[in-house]
C-alpha cells in the first residue's frame, strides 16, 4: 500500500493548495514534496529486492475487470532508483521556484505536485493502462507550467510539446492494445493489461513481423519523449520557454520516461525485432549525439545550449539501451539518473542567473566568477560533471555506455550484441564535442572580463551571489554527483538483477540472428501475404 501512499500524498497536497491562501502555497508544496521524499527514502531502505530482478512494494487494486485493467503498482530496483530521482528533484524544484514565481502561485505549486504523482505513476505502474494514463498525465501539468509561466514564446512551445508527445503516445497505446488483444485471444477471451504477463506473452508468442510493428508503435511514443533524432524538435523550444523548475523536471525526469519506457517495454516485449533494428536505432542515436552537439556549439542562448546538450546526452543513453549487454544497460540506467542530477542542476544555475540578469545570452554576459564566485563554482562543477570528468558521475555512465557498445559485437563470448567498436568510436566524438561546447560556454560566462547587461535596478531584490536557499538546492545535487562518481558500484550492483533479467533472452536471439538474419525486406513480404 505504501506506493499508493506515495502517489496519493502529492495529490492531496495539490488539493490542499487549492483551498488555502496563495501566500502559503509554496510552503505546503515544499512540505508535501519533502514528506514524499522522506517516505520514498524509507521505502528504499525497506526494499528487500535490491540487486534482484524481483518487483517489490507490490499492491493489487482491481478495477476495470471487464478489460482486465488494474491499478497494480510495484517497483523493481531500476524503477525505484528513478522514483528516488523524482522525489528528490520535486522538492528542489518547489524550493527553487520561491522567488521566481510571483503570479498564479497556487496553480503553479498544485501543478508541480500533480506532475510528481504522474511521474511516480509511470515508474511504479504494473499495468499497461495505468502506465499510459500516468505517461499522458505528465503532459497536462507540464503543458500548463510552460504555457502559463514560460518565456515569450510559451504558447507555441507548450502546444508543440503537447502535440508531439500526445500524437506519438497514441500510437504506443494502439500497439499496447494490440498486444493485449493477442494475449486475450490466447487466453480464450480474458483480457489483461498486466505488464509482466504481456511482456512474457509478446516476447514468446508474437511473430517477428508483429513484433516489428509493435516496436515501431512503441518507439513512436518513447522516441518523441527521449527525444531521438529526428523527432527531437519540440525539446529545445519547450526547455527554453519553460520556467526553471519546468526545465529541471523536463530534463531531469520527463525525458527519462522515454528511456524508461524502452527499458520497461521495448526490451522485454519485442526482443526479436529489437535485435534486428538495434543498429538502426543506434545510428539514429549517434546522429542525435553528433548533430545536437554541433548545434550546441553555435548557440548563444545558454539555456538552449543545455537543452540541445540533453538531446546529445540522451543519445548515449539510447545507445546503452540497445547495446544489449549488462554493462551498457547499467550504464544507460545510471545515465538516466546522472543526467537528471547534473542537467537539472545546470538548469537551476541558469535560472538563478536569469533571475538576476534577465538574459541568457552568452555574448552579453561574462566573467561572472568575479561577481558571483559561489555560483561560478557550482557552474564549473556541474559542467564538469556533465562533460564526464573522471571522479564525477557523468564519466562513469558515459564510459559504461560506450564501453558496452564497443564490446557489443557478435563474437563476444557472454553477451553478444549487434553493435560494435565502430558505433562506439563515432559516438565518442560526441564526448569531445560536449567538452568543447560546454567549456566554451563556461569560458565565456564564468571567466574572462566581467560583462553585465544593463540593469534597471528593479530586479536586485536577490543578493548578488547565491542565497543560502539556492546553495541548499545545489548542495544535495553536487553531493550525489560526487558520491555516484566515487561509488557507482552501489547503484550498479543494486540494479544488476533487474538488468540481467531483462537481457536474459538476448544472447540466444543474437546468435540466431547471426545464423539466419531476418531482414526488414522479409518482413514486408510476409505482411503482404497476410
Amino acid at each position, binding site marked *: 500500500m505504501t506506493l499508493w501512499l506515495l502517489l496519493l500524498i502529492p495529490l492531496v497536497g495539490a488539493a490542499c493548495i487549492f483551498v488555502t491562501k496563495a501566500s502559503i502555497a509554496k510552503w505546503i508544496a515544499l512540505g508535501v514534496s519533502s514528506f514524499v521524499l522522506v517516505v520514498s527514502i524509507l521505502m528504499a531502505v525497506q526494499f528487500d529486492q535490491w540487486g534482484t530482478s524481483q518487483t517489490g512494494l507490490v499492491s493489487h487494486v482491481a478495477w*476495470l475487470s471487464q478489460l482486465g485493467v488494474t491499478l497494480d503498482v510495484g517497483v523493481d530496483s531500476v524503477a525505484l532508483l528513478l522514483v528516488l530521482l523524482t522525489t528528490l528533484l520535486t522538492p528542489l524544484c518547489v524550493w527553487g521556484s520561491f522567488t521566481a514565481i510571483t503570479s498564479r502561485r497556487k496553480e503553479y505549486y498544485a501543478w508541480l505536485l500533480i506532475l510528481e504523482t504522474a511521474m511516480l505513476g509511470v515508474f511504479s505502474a504494473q499495468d499497461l493502462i495505468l502506465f499510459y*494514463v500516468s505517461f499522458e498525465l505528465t503532459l497536462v501539468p507540464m503543458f500548463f507550467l510552460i504555457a502559463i509561466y514560460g518565456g515569450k514564446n510559451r504558447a507555441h512551445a*507548450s502546444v508543440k510539446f503537447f502535440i508531439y508527445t500526445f500524437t506519438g503516445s497514441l500510437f504506443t497505446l494502439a500497439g499496447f492494445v494490440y498486444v493485449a*488483444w493477442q494475449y486475450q485471444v490466447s487466453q480464450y477471451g480474458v483480457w489483461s493489461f498486466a505488464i509482466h504477463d504481456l511482456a512474457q506473452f509478446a516476447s514468446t508468442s508474437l511473430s517477428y513481423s508483429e513484433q516489428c510493428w509493435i516496436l515501431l508503435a512503441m518507439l513512436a511514443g518513447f522516441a518523441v519523449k527521449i527525444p531521438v533524432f529526428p523527432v527531437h524538435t519540440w525539446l529545445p523550444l519547450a526547455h527554453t520557454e519553460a520556467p526553471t523548475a519546468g526545465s529541471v523536471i523536463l530534463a531531469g525526469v520527463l525525458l527519462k520516461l522515454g528511456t524508461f519506457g524502452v527499458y520497461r517495454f521495448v526490451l522485454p516485449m519485442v526482443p526479436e525485432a529489437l535485435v534486428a533494428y538495434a543498429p538502426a536505432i543506434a545510428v539514429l542515436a549517434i546522429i542525435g549525439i553528433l548533430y545536437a552537439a554541433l548545434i550546441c556549439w553555435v548557440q548563444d542562448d545558454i539555456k538552449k545550449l543545455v537543452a540541445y546538450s540533453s538531446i546529445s546526452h540522451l543519445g548515449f543513453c539510447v545507445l546503452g539501451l540497445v547495446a544489449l549487454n549488462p554493462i551498457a544497460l547499467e550504464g544507460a540506467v545510471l545515465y538516466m539518473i546522472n543526467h537528471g542530477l547534473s542537467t537539472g542542476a545546470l538548469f537551476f544555475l541558469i535560472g538563478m542567473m536569469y533571475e538576476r540578469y534577465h538574459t541568457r545570452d552568452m555574448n552579453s554576459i561574462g566573467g561572472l566568477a568575479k561577481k558571483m564566485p559561489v555560483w561560478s563554482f557550482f557552474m564549473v562543477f556541474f559542467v564538469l560533471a556533465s562533460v564526464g570528468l573522471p571522479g564525477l558521475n557523468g564519466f562513469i555512465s558515459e564510459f559504461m555506455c560506450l564501453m558496452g557498445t564497443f564490446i557489443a559485437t557478435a563474437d563476444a563470448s557472454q553477451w553478444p550484441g549487434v553493435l560494435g567498436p565502430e558505433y562506439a568510436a563515432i559516438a565518442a566524438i560526441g564526448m569531445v564535442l560536449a567538452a568543447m561546447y560546454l567549456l566554451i560556454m563556461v569560458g565565456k560566462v564564468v571567466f574572462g572580463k566581467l560583462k553585465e547587461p544593463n540593469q534597471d535596478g528593479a530586479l536586485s531584490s536577490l543578493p548578488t551571489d547565491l542565497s543560502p536557499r539556492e546553495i541548499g538546492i545545489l548542495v544535495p545535487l553536487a553531493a550525489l554527483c560526487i558520491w555516484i562518481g566515487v561509488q557507482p558500484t552501489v547503484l550498479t550492483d543494486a540494479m544488476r538483477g533487474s538488468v540481467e533479467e531483462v537481457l536474459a533472452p538476448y544472447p540466444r536471439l543474437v546468435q540466431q540472428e547471426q545464423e539466419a538474419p531476418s531482414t526488414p525486406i522479409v518482413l514486408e513480404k510476409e505482411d503482404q501475404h497476410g
Partner: protein
Amino acid sequence: MADRLWFLIPELILLVGAITCAIGGLVNTAAIRRGVGFIACAFLAVACISIPFVYTTEHLATADTLLPNIGKYVKFFAALIGILLVMTSGGLMDRKYEHAIAKGKATFSALRTSGGEYHALLLLSIAGVMLICEARDLIWLFLALELVSLPTYVMVAISRWSKVAQEAAMKYFFLGAVSAALMLYGFALLYGATGTFVFTEMVDVFAAQRAEGGISVFGQIGLLLAIFGLCYKIAAAPMHLYAPDVYQGASAAVTAFLAFIPKTAGMLAIIMLCTLVGWDENGLPPAIEMALWVVAVLTMLLGNIGALLQTSAQRMLGYSSIAHSGYMLIGVIAGPPLGIVAVLVYLVIYGATNTSAFATLACLSRDGDRVDSLEDISGLHKRSPLAATSLAVSCGSLLGIPPLFGFWGKLLLFAAGIAAGQLLLVLIAVVASAISAWYYLRLIGLSLLSSTTPRSEGVSVTLRWPLIAAVLSAIIAIGGPLVLTSLMADAEQAVVMPEE
C-alpha cells in the same frame, strides 16, 4: 399488449411532463411559467427513478424486442443527461419578455411566450429516444425516430430570434425530410427483401439468407439506404454538411441537445439495423461493413480537419461532435459484445462532456449578445474561472486526455476496433485524435491561458443554470472513471440478446 405498454412507463411519464410543461408555460402566474424548467427536470428525474422498477426480470421475460435490455441503460442515461440539457437551456427562453413583465413594461400574452412549448418539445424528443429502445418493427422505429427529430426542428427555430436561427431550422428541416425519405425507402426495400416488418422475424430471414450464401441485393441496398439516412441523425459524413450551419445557427443550449439526443437516436437505430443482419466471425456483411468503414473514416477526418479551420467556437464544437460520431462507428463495425458496449459507454461519456462544453458557451454572453467567436472566450479565466475550467476539462475529456472520462471511452472503442481486426481503422482514428488535439488545445489555451482582448472585455457569465450544468458535467468528466466499471457492466447487460 399490456406487457408492451409496461415498458413505456418512462415515455408516458415524459408525455405527461410534456403536457404539463406546455400548459405551465401558458399560465398567468409568472412563478409557474418560470418554473417550467424545474417541472421538466422533475419529470425526467421521475422517469429515471421509474426505470429500475419497470425493468424487472419478470417483466423482461415477456419482452419481445430485439435487444430487450437496452432500454434500461439508454432510457436511464437519456433522462439523466436530459436533466443536464434542461439545465443548459435554463434562462434561454422568454428571458427578456419575462423581465419586461416583471418590471411592468409588458403584459403577459400567451402568444408571445414559448418557454412551455420549448420544454414540452424537449421532453417529447427525449421520449422519442426512449421509444426507439422498445421498437419491435420498422414502423415503430421510423415513428420513434421522427418523434426525436420533429421537435428539434422547432427547437432550433424558437431558440433565438434571429434570421440565422430561422435559416438553420429550415435547412435542418428540409434536409431532415430528405434523409427521412431516404431511410424510409430503405425500410421499404428491407420489407421487400424479408417480407416482414418485425425485427425478430427479419433476423431469422437474414440468417437464413446468410446461410445460403449472402443477403439479397434488395436487403443490402435497403440497409445501406437506411444507414445513410440515419447518418443524417448522427451527423456523419457525407450527410454531415448541414451540421456546422445548424449547430452554429441555433443557440448553444439547443446545439448541445442536437449533438446528443438525435445522435443517440441515430446510433441506436444503426445498432438495431446492424443487429438484424448480425456480425459473424468476419463482422458485418462486406457491403455494409465497407460502407460504415468509409463513413467512419470520412467522418473522423472531415470532422476534425473541419474543426481546425473554424473561428466560431460553436461551429468548432459542432465539427468536433461530427468527429465523435466517426469514433463511435468504429464500435458499430467491431460489433458485439465489446464494440456495442463501447458505443453505449461512449455515448454517455460524450453526452456528458459535450454538454459541458456547450453549456459553458450557453452561460456566457457578450454585452447581451451571445458568445460565438473564439476571441470571445479568450481570457475567460479572468472573468469566470469556473466556466473556463469546465470548458477546459470538457475539451480535455473530448480529446481523451487520461485520466478524464473521455479517454476511457476512446480506449474501449480502440480496444473493440483492434479486437475486431480493424487495425487500419483504429490507426486512422489515432491520427484523427491527434489532429483534434490542435483545436481542443486551442480552446483550452484560449479559455485558461490567454489574456483578455478588447472584444472579450464585455463577456461575462449571465446565466446561472447553464453554468451549473457545465460544472456538474465537468465533475462527471473528472470523477466518471470511478464508476466506469459499473457503467460498463450495465452496458454489457444492455446488449445481452434473449436466448432462443
